[in-house]
């Protein structure tokens, strides 16, 4: 899980390491836009812009939707997903702790059994 998160963050940081992609994200935070509009705004070829948007999309920072011939881009649900994911991570940490605690409790129960037997003798 931690590895997964690391990988996720790496992708996010890699996606944001490029000045154009930061610009694109900045633009999309303000308003959604089509690939064509973004390409024009950033003075870039359609193919070039598609690549940048693809990287942002992979990092979960941007989502795209094709309606007819126009592909619209907007800020992705990445942040939202992270907010709910931590509860699950937290649960997993406690589940791991409590599974170990089961072992400690078993030992204590064994000890009580032995102590009880000794007392009876």
């Amino acid at each position, binding site marked *: 899980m931690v590895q997964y998160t690391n990988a996720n*963050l790496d992708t996010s940081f890699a996606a944001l390491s490029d000045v154009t992609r930061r610009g694109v994200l900045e*633009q999309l935070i303000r308003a959604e836009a089509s690939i064509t509009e973004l390409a024009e705004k950033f003075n870039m070829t359609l193919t070039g812009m598609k690549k940048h948007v693809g990287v942002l999309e992979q990092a979960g920072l941007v989502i795209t939707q094709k309606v007819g011939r126009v592909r619209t881009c907007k800020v992705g649900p990445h942040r939202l997903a992270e907010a709910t994911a931590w509860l*699950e991570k937290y649960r997993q940490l*406690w589940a*791991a702790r*409590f599974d*170990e*605690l089961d072992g400690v*409790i078993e030992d204590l129960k064994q000890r009580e059994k032995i102590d009880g037997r000794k007392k009876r003798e």
Partner: protein
Amino acid sequence: MAARKESEPKPMKNRTTVERKSERELIVMRTFDAPAQIVFEAWTKPDLFRRWWAPRSRGISLLSCEMDVRVGGGYRLVFGKGMEFFGRYIEVTPHSRLVWTNDEGGEGGPVTTVTFEEKGGKTLLVMHELYSSKEALDAAGTGAADGMGELFGQLDELLATLGASGGRVRSG
């Protein structure tokens, strides 16, 4: 008798549930197949506590664990990389209730209440964490779960900067 009992199949692990009860409260619940007195012991004796608090499966190692379990007594857990957790016990009721503060983040840290409720030889454990604000819980969530809070913070900051710089989109 005992032999027959031991040959019974091992029961499935009990499920741990986590619930965000409110904006400031988090609840972790789990049932243990033992009387409350035993579960309580595992939470209050340092040599037992350290065996499970830092689960091997998570790659966490606890360097030291000091616990003075009585009202007003302190505790201090030291993990690798200088990570420390400390606070004070504010309520200690044997076999049923423990309340402590979490002071590593300064004043206004969360308060943890653990109750041990015995029923038919089993114990329902409820751990309740009360944070000072929604933001404090949110921050602890990303941080405590995996120690990645700082990185998330950096990413948040970066995204906030990107959002705040508004119209200055590179257009060249």
